[in-house]
Structure formats: C-alpha cells, structure tokens
C-alpha cells in the first residue's frame, strides 16, 4: 500500500485520498475547520496548511520573503516554502509532509487563528459550543496569545432564526461553509448560502425560505464553532457536565449510531449526536432521530400502577409484580404475549423465553408504531427500530400483528396479555376493545395505547438507561449502552421479566445483561444474517 510520511510517521493511503483524509483515517489530526470527512473540500479556513517537501515529480513552491533578523535589527531577504492546504492536496506515494514539526506551519496556524478571532465576540460564557468549540481548542493549542486588536469588533446579526430548529449567530461564524455544503450535498436542499466577503461574510437563508426539512439540526452538528445552535439544546446544559455513551437512535429501522449525552447528576438526556459509522449512517442523523432523546423524559412510566381508568393507583414495584403474577396464575393456558418493535432484542427475548418456557404460550403478537415518511438519505419508512430484533428474540418465528388479537380474545382463548412497551399503532376499534377486555400487563417505559388499557403497569427503563441491541434494516445487530441510571422505579425490561418469573415460582437466573446475552446465545440458533458488533466496533472515538 502506498504511503506518505507525515511528521516522520508512515501513513498509508488509498488512491485519490487527500493528506488530511489519510491522516484522519490513521488517527492523526491536522487542525481544520472547514474540512469534514463527509463533505466536499472547500479549503477556505486555511487552518490545515502543511509544508510539503519537493519530490522528483512535484516541485516545492518557495516564496521570497523578508525575515526579521535579531542580530542585524533589520529585515533581511529570505526564502520560505509556500504552505498548502492538507485538505486539498492529493497523496502521492513517498510524499514528505510536515505538520506539527514545521515552524512555518505553526506560525501560519497561529496567524490564521488570530484572524478568525479578530471580530469574534468571545462570548464563551453564553455560548453553547463552549467546551467543544474548535476556536477554543485551537486557540489553546496553536495561538495562546491575548487579543491584540483593541478596537471594538464589527457587530453582526445575532440570534437570527433560520427556521423552527436553528438559531444563527453571525458574530461567532467563521464562514467555513460546512452548513452550506451539508444542506447542498447531504440534505439535497441548498437553502443556505454565504454572502459578502472578508469581515462581512455571513451565512443566510435563501430569501422567502426558511431552513426546514428532516436534516436541519445537522447543521449545528457540523458547525465547528457556536454560530449555529439548535433551539432544542439551546441553554439547556453546559457540555462539560455531560457524559457520553455510544447508543443507537430508536427512531426508525435505519438504526443510526449515536452518542448519547447525559447529565449523570439528574439523569437527563439533553441531546443525541450522530456517531460515525460508514456502514449505517456515515456522519449524519435526521431531526426526528436527534429529538428521540425526549422519549427519555416525556410520557415516562416512572412508577408501577395497578388498575384501570379511575381505579388505577400507584403501588410499589413488588406489589405490582405480585398482582401481575396473580393475573397470570389465574388464567393458565390463556396467556399471550405482545413483543415490541420499540424495545431491545434482549427484552423481547426475555419475554419470549419466559412465555415459551414457563407459560406455554403459543400466541405471539408484535406491537409496532405506525410508519413515518422515509427518504433515500437516512430515514426508513418503518419507524420501529427493532422489528427484526423482536422476531429474532422470539426465535425467528413470525409474529402476528395486533389486529389478529380480537378473535382469540373474544373466543376466550386469551384472557391475559403480557405486553412489552407502551406505544403501539392501534387504529381499529375491535383491537382496542380486545385490549380492553383482556387483562393486560404492560412492561413499558413510555405511556401509550398499551399502558392506557393495562391492568398492571411495570415501569421499564428507556433505551438510554439500559444496555441492549437493535437489529436494523440491514440485519446488523447494533449494541447500545446504558447512560443514566433508570429513572423512578424503572428497571431494565429483562430484569422485570426475571423478577416476574421469580414471582411465578419459576425463577430465571439472570443477574446482569451479560447473563441475558449468554442465555440468548444458548437458546437461539445463530442466524447467518446477524453479525453482532460489526457496526459498533467500527465506530471511532469521536
């Protein structure tokens, strides 16, 4: 494999790659603002300038300069290599590149950084980007000098609303045009553009339009500074309070890889960010996917409940478990289960395992939410993240839709239902009636049609609070990790089912998530389709 030498380190590359791409893949960072691995090259920030030595086929450009001589106390003629942007120069085998080791490059970065900060308001205390801002990072690593400009900065529009989701601050903007290129190339809606030059440069929305569509919040994610912020996250948290765990978006069957940012002190999840996975979502996510973090707080079933309608009252989790066990014991042979396409494969497996092994259940149903509008970019029509996981958890058997529930309930073959998840798309009245007639035990994180009709509600942890996995539309099993502690009285879905089994006098000996994984591996024949961890393992640190 051909390679280049960057600061003395051999870096392999594939034909057509630029220096910064090859370095990025090898885990070496060259400071940059406007370059993004998923976007086209603009080379306008001038931060990634590097010194490239001459090769037999490529001569080095050298500039005549006047350099200050300390001894002579005068400027003397000198020569200096012309620096080139690493994001634009294609790799050639044997190219010798100097980045951090060249004083010329350090000098250039320092001056570029100073220029970018000339009219910057330095309002880090009120800026949401503070703590993860490239201007801060590179000031500390490359510049480190106080502002030399004493004049008042040039003031530009602040807090301009670009649409329903994004707020723009022109003073903080370095006009790297990442957002412009994102909307053009990825979202296929070139609604943003740049106007004016130099100090006056700013991003604007096409007249008569606003920033809209399914991919607006990504412009905040690609923005290297605090110019674009989402209304959703604006002033909600300071990023240094947040911890992150790798997670999977529960929005649709695509299964975009995410970073789940959470506040360990309060258990809140103020945002999701896309995590690089070239096989699934590349670097992107859609707005609805990013907003799935709200499911961790909204409509949560934080406590256990027994009873329906007005008779419903909050009880202790153990009392609810006992009530659920009593319902199951009272109707031997008349129990059916509803698996969930919203919950993890492990939870579905746990319910199917309990039902098949201990309750002799034959009828397996699948609750799923309705479709949303998919597209060719990321979004799948199926808004359920784990339809295949639910099938896999049940041993790759086919699952009946909820609409087939009415007949056996009416015929008294089913009188107790154990349902995973609270949300389901139940449109027809007969199904609702059947759910109302049967005694329903819902193990749910969020309130929905299933918990409305439930006799017993057992609070389950949300996707953010428990380990698990989803199988996406490609058949890739992707693991997600637990972030905050489960809210309220909630527990992981499989944990509730293990405790329920204990109440039924048929103990299942699962102590941890790994026990469930081991049990799943032992109980289910491994299908060729599922290739666990392939996607999750491919994810880099940041």
């Amino acid at each position, binding site marked *: 494999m051909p390679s280049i030498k960057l600061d003395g380190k051999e870096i392999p590359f594939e034909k057509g790659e630029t220096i910064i791409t090859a370095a990025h893949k090898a885990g070496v960072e060259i400071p940059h603002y406007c370059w993004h691995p998923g976007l086209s090259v603009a080379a306008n920030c001038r931060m990634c300038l590097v010194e490239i030595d001459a090769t037999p086929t490529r001569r080095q450009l050298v500039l005549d300069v006047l350099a200050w001589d300390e001894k002579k106390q005068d400027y003397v003629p000198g020569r200096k290599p012309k620096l080139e942007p690493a994001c634009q120069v294609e790799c050639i085998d044997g190219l010798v590149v100097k980045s951090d080791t060249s004083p010329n490059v350090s000098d250039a970065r320092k001056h570029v950084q100073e220029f970018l900060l000339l009219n910057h308001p330095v*309002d*880090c*205390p*009120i800026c949401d980007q*503070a703590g993860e801002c490239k201007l801060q990072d590179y000031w500390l690593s490359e510049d480190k000098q106080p502002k030399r400009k004493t*004049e*008042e*900065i*040039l*003031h*530009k*529009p*602040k*807090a*301009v609303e670009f649409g329903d989701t994004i707020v723009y*601050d022109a003073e903080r903007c370095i006009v790297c045009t990442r957002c412009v290129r994102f909307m053009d190339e990825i979202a296929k809606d070139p609604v943003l553009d740049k106007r004016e030059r130099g100090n*006056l440069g700013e991003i604007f929305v096409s007249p008569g339009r606003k920033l809209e569509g399914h991919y607006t919040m990504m412009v905040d994610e690609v923005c290297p500074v605090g110019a674009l912020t989402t209304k959703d996250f*604006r*002033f909600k948290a*300071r990023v*240094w*309070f947040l911890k992150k765990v790798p997670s999977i978006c529960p929005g649709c069957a695509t299964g975009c890889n995410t970073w789940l940012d959470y506040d360990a002190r309060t258990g809140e999840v103020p945002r999701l960010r896309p995590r690089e996975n070239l096989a699934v979502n590349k670097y992107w996510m859609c707005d609805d996917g990013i907003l799935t973090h709200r499911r961790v707080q909204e409509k949560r079933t934080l406590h256990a409940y027994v009873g329906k309608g007005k008779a419903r009252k909050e009880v202790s989790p153990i009392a609810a478990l006992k009530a659920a066990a009593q319902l199951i014991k009272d109707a031997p042979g008349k129990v059916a289960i509803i698996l969930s396409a919203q919950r993890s494969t492990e939870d579905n497996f746990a319910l199917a395992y309990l039902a098949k092994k201990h309750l002799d259940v034959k009828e397996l149903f699948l609750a799923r939410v309705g479709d949303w509008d998919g597209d060719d970019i990321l979004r799948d029509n199926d808004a359920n993240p784990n339809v295949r996981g639910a099938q896999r958890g049940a041993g790759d058997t086919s699952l009946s839709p909820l609409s087939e529930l009415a007949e056996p309930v009416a015929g008294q073959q089913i009188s107790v239902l154990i349902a995973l998840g609270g949300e389901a798309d139940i449109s027809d009245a007969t199904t609702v009636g059947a759910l109302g007639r049967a005694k329903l035990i819902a193990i749910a994180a969020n309130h929905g049609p299933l918990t409305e009709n439930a006799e017993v509600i057992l609070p389950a942890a949300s996707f953010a609070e428990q380990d698990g996995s989803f199988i996406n539309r490609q058949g890739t099993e992707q693991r997600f990790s637990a972030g905050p502690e489960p809210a309220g009285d909630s527990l992981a879905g499989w944990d509730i089912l293990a405790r329920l089994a204990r109440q039924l006098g048929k103990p299942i000996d699962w102590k941890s998530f790994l026990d469930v994984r081991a049990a799943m591996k032992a109980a289910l024949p491994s299908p060729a389709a599922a290739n666990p961890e392939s996607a999750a393992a491919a994810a880099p640190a940041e």
Partner: protein
Amino acid sequence: MPQPLVGSFPYDKVKGTAVPKPTRTASEQGYVSEITKGIAVTMTHFFKNTRAMVRGERPDPVVDPMSEGITTLEYPDQKRPYPERFRGVHRLTHRDDGSPRCVACLCCSTACPAQCIYIEAGEYGGKDKRHGYERYPVKFVIDELRCIFCGYCVEACPCDAIRMDTGVHPVPYDSRDQFIYGKNMLLAMASQAGKQKHENPRAEPPDADYGPIERLAGHH
C-alpha cells in the same frame, strides 16, 4: 514492654527535682489584705472603663489591642466591620438598569467544590435589546448551608456577577430552608460599602456606553 499504669508505677526509679512548697507570709496567710488588693485591681478597671464608657472612648480591638481602656465589643449590639476582602455570603451584582449582570454561564457552579449553586438559564426575548447578546438566570439558587465559602465562584465568574463582599458572615437561622438563597435575595444584597452594581468594564447593548460598529445599513 509497657508497664501497667495502675498500682505498680515505678515512682522510685523516676529521676527529677523536688519542687519546694511555696512559703507564705503572715499577711498572705491572713487573706484580708490580699483580697483587698484584688478588689482594688478590679475596681480600678471598673472605674476606668466606666469613665471610658461615659466619655465614649473605645479603641479598636483589632488595630489597637494592647491599649488601655475597653478592648472588647458588646457583640451583637456592637459590630466591628469585617476586612474588605472578607468572604461573606454571596450577592449578585446589577447592571445599570437593575437587571442581574449574571449571564448564567454556569462557570461558578462548575468551579464550586461543594456543588451548592443551581442555575437555570433563560434567554431575553425577541424585542429586548439584549436579545442574542445575553442570556440570564431564570433561577439562581445558592445553598448557603452547603457552601464552604472558598470564593471559587467569585474567581470563576467572567462577568463580575457574583461577589462575596457583603460583609455578612454565615447567619444562623431557625430552619434549613432559610439557608436556600434565591435570585431575588441574592440581588437584594449590597456590598459593605452599599454598592450593588458590577464593575465589569465590558459594554453591551443595554449599557449607556455601548457604541458598536454595526454592519452596513440595510442588510438586515
């Protein structure tokens, strides 16, 4: 090997010098003259202090502790001002228009080792002059019970919004909830000199001395 303390302490082996018993003269042994001397000292101070009190002379106990006269304070009726840099309970500084200088950046609560500061940030509305420039604390709560008065919050503040120069030491209260200082309470406090304004030199849109170089007219 340690010796047992009780019963068999080796007194005979301990080396030392015997202290002679004090000898007393007859007048000392007679008590009356000695007691009269003692009362004389007390009464001397009593009349001296009475005279000082009548005249209103009271040297500062910190600056002039060795002087004659009354060198005590009748706390809490009399109080000595704390030094200028004494770290008392917190206060939030004001802008010219009386709004809090704080921008809810959470630097103080980040620096706080006792985690006693809770802030919720909000944004000035669309018609406010500060819209886009400033956010403000919707809630600003300090748990003075938890506070260890280290002053890190004051050090961390980039806006001179929080200060500990009130000269009020941690106050004892009847119940714990009285130690939870809210935003209005903190804004109502003043420095020892009675000042409530901040001294951050940076001018911003609501300030009178804010003179920006705006963009070319007609663009926005």
